[in-house]
């Protein structure tokens, strides 16, 4: 969410130059940890706060308040020449956990599957693990296949997907470039295959979607309250749409 946070801060800074906004990246975990330590006013997170993090915060006298500020979809991307158009969640789970290793097992060409993923400290990675690889089951302990390539950035994933016909990867909708092919996803065999767009995320038909949050220490007051109101207002949401995420309305 750092790109979003930066875009928001920049735009708001132009409207209200008296307000100083400093944005640092580092991932959902880093932001929430900083909130718990009392070193930041707002923590952006692409996943909900965990129970143990909430307990730690309250032990420090901080009550985290959750605000939903945008939506996001995880797009499954493959090389443009890949004949496969859609996959189900169970198929994706089997592919990314290493049970399916050849494209012909899902109706593609006779090619080995090359798995691309974000690094394990990324909120996107964790979300994908829980919702796709483990198919949303809380007690499932399946892991990504050890052969999964963990790329340090979205550009790393894009660079491989756009030139390797064996590749399959995932990333936030805002990071997909036009030279990659996006697959339609069905939640199960027999369900409709849906492509990720702003509309299909908003109406809930795309199965791999999530909310993006900002956590504050207690109910926001003063300048923080005004900033948050602006973020969920029309101008902040226009920036959300511009960056490829899904606005609230």
């Amino acid at each position, binding site marked *: 969410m750092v790109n979003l946070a930066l875009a928001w801060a920049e735009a708001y800074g132009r409207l209200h130059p008296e307000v100083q906004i400093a944005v640092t990246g*580092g*991932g959902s*975990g*880093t932001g929430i*940890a900083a909130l718990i330590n009392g070193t930041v006013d707002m923590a952006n997170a692409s996943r909900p706060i965990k129970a143990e993090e909430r307990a730690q915060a309250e032990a420090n006298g901080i009550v985290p308040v959750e605000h939903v500020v945008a939506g996001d979809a995880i797009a499954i991307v493959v090389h443009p020449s890949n004949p496969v158009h859609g996959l189900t969640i169970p198929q994706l789970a089997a592919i990314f956990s290493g049970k399916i290793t050849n494209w012909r097992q899902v109706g593609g060409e006779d*090619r*080995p*599957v*090359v798995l691309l993923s974000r*690094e*394990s*400290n990324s909120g996107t990675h*964790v979300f994908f*693990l829980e919702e796709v690889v483990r198919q949303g089951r809380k007690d499932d*302990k399946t*892991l*990504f296949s*050890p*052969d*999964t*390539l*963990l*790329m*340090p950035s979205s550009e*790393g994933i894009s*660079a*491989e997907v756009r*030139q*390797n016909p*064996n*590749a399959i990867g995932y990333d936030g909708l805002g990071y997909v470039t036009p030279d990659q092919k996006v697959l339609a996803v069905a939640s199960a065999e027999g369900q409709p295959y849906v492509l990720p767009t702003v509309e299909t995320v908003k109406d809930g038909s795309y199965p791999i979607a999530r909310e993006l949050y900002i956590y504050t220490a207690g109910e926001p007051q003063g300048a923080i309250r005004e900033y948050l109101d602006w973020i969920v207002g029309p101008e902040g949401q226009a920036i959300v749409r511009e960056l490829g995420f899904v606005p609230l309305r």
Partner: protein
Amino acid sequence: MNRLNVRWREFVIETLIRLSGFSAILFVVLVFLFLLKEGAPTFWQISPGNLFGQRWYPNEGLFGTWPLILGSLLVTAGAVVIALPLGLATAVFIRELAPDWLREILKPLIEVLAGIPSVVLGFLGMVAVAPLVRQVLNVPTGLTAFTGALMLAYMSLPTIISVAEDAIDAVPKSYRDGALALGATHWQTIWRVVLPAARSGVIIAVMLGIGRAIGETMAVMMVTGNAARVPHEWNALFLPVRTMTATIAAEMGEVAQGSTHYHVLFAVGILLFVVTFLINAATSVVIIRSGERRGGRLMG
């Protein structure tokens, strides 16, 4: 200026220089102590079975470092195997075969090679070399240990060439004259007299190349695929790996201070420190011993 003044000045200058020298040792010791302090909790927080297991997935408490250690070793070994013959051949060419005008061009060019930032090489590797490797070698992906070894070889090459070149240069002219007088051809002289005489310098060059390769982070992070798998097949060089350096770089930024993951990353750092230290220490021993043998020459 009277003698007391001069003696005082001398004393101050010598002390300052001595302090500077010792401060270098002090920094190294302090760094090592800090690594130890932050990494030591690993050994009582994680069981050895976990620490030397085969699966590295910290999110779920799996801290098997074998894939990382073997990944680093594989990429480094590959880099040395590629860079050593190439570097040695280049050094021989520059010293023994190239005309003077060519030598004057090649030497600065090699220094320029050394100046290219590793992240630029990593990017080139990711965008240009990896697709080529995939197409030419017909492997599933071009992000492999081999690609990493290639980029590392490129980076170690200037070091290996410079040191090997100095070693060859230090071989006394009398050796070459003697060989030629006995009827040896130029190549026989190089291969059977000069190179064996320059042996310790070549060993030093290899060790410095290894030291450079094992510590490289950005380039390998971008081209080796970062898949934490144990390279157990015969063709593991052409499959993705994950190095210790890339793991620290990718994960340290987001780890919670004081968590088990944090301590393990420092433990991996300790391992890297120790390995690099041992390589450098061994190199120094070889330098000193070869110096003694040759009556004081530093290389060769």
